């Protein structure tokens, strides 16, 4: 079963996205930790898109889809933008360097990469799909 939510690109809608993902995951027998980490990864990616690709433009939307296939959760984030950022090419920065430089960004995508098992990016005429995979041991989903 596929669950889907479309929201305008505002930071205030991140909470709605988190509730949506939590609701979609609630029908599976997951630990609070696993649930929180998947919510966090989707939140981070959506925040990145909303803020950097769409500049919090509420006239633009992103769509989040969640499904489960064979012990694997598959999340899709759809948006329309010409943003050239490619998560697959993103190199994880050194945390100590982030602290030394007093930066308060850069850690969201580290979390996405460390939490998720696999990431795919698809682009087609301005329509972007970021697909995230998370496999959990048998019995937990």
């Amino acid at each position: 079963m596929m669950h889907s939510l479309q929201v305008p690109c505002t930071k205030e809608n991140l909470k709605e996205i988190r509730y949506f993902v939590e609701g979609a995951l609630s029908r599976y027998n997951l630990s609070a930790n696993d649930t929180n980490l998947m919510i966090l990864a989707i939140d981070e990616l959506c925040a990145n898109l909303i803020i950097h690709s769409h500049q919090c433009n509420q006239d633009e939307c992103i769509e989040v889809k969640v499904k489960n296939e064979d012990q694997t959760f598959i999340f899709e984030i759809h948006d329309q933008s010409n943003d050239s950022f490619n998560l697959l090419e993103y190199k994880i920065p050194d945390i100590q360097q982030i602290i030394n430089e007093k930066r308060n960004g850069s850690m969201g995508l580290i979390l996405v990469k460390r939490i998720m098992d696999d990431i795919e990016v698809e682009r087609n005429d301005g329509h972007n799909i970021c697909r995230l995979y998370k496999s959990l041991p048998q019995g937990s989903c």
Partner: protein
Amino acid sequence: MELKVSNEEKFHIIQIIGDLDASSSILLDNALEEAITTNTKSILIDCAELHYISSPGIGAFTSRLEECIEKNIIMVLFGLNDKIVNVFRILGLDQLIVIKISKDDAKDYINDAQFTSALH
């Protein structure tokens, strides 16, 4: 998200209530900036009612770490639930940010650190 700021003896305490995410982290950032400018040497962050944290919230702490070291300010987080400790752990920040279980533990840590520092 709501913040409550109070003072107990020498301790400047910031209590975080709710979700700390991209839309609310600016409030914590402002509260930390204000705490640092009060000349306090002891900042306690009460996370017992912190339900969720994402990277902008974590960034509010990490972006102030160096400034705290430069100004001899000790910042300690306490009362975090397991889910939130796990997020800090994934980033390796549990080794760089002081995290204690209770307010008393946090106060003891700061008192010991300041006592040791005064001896040198």
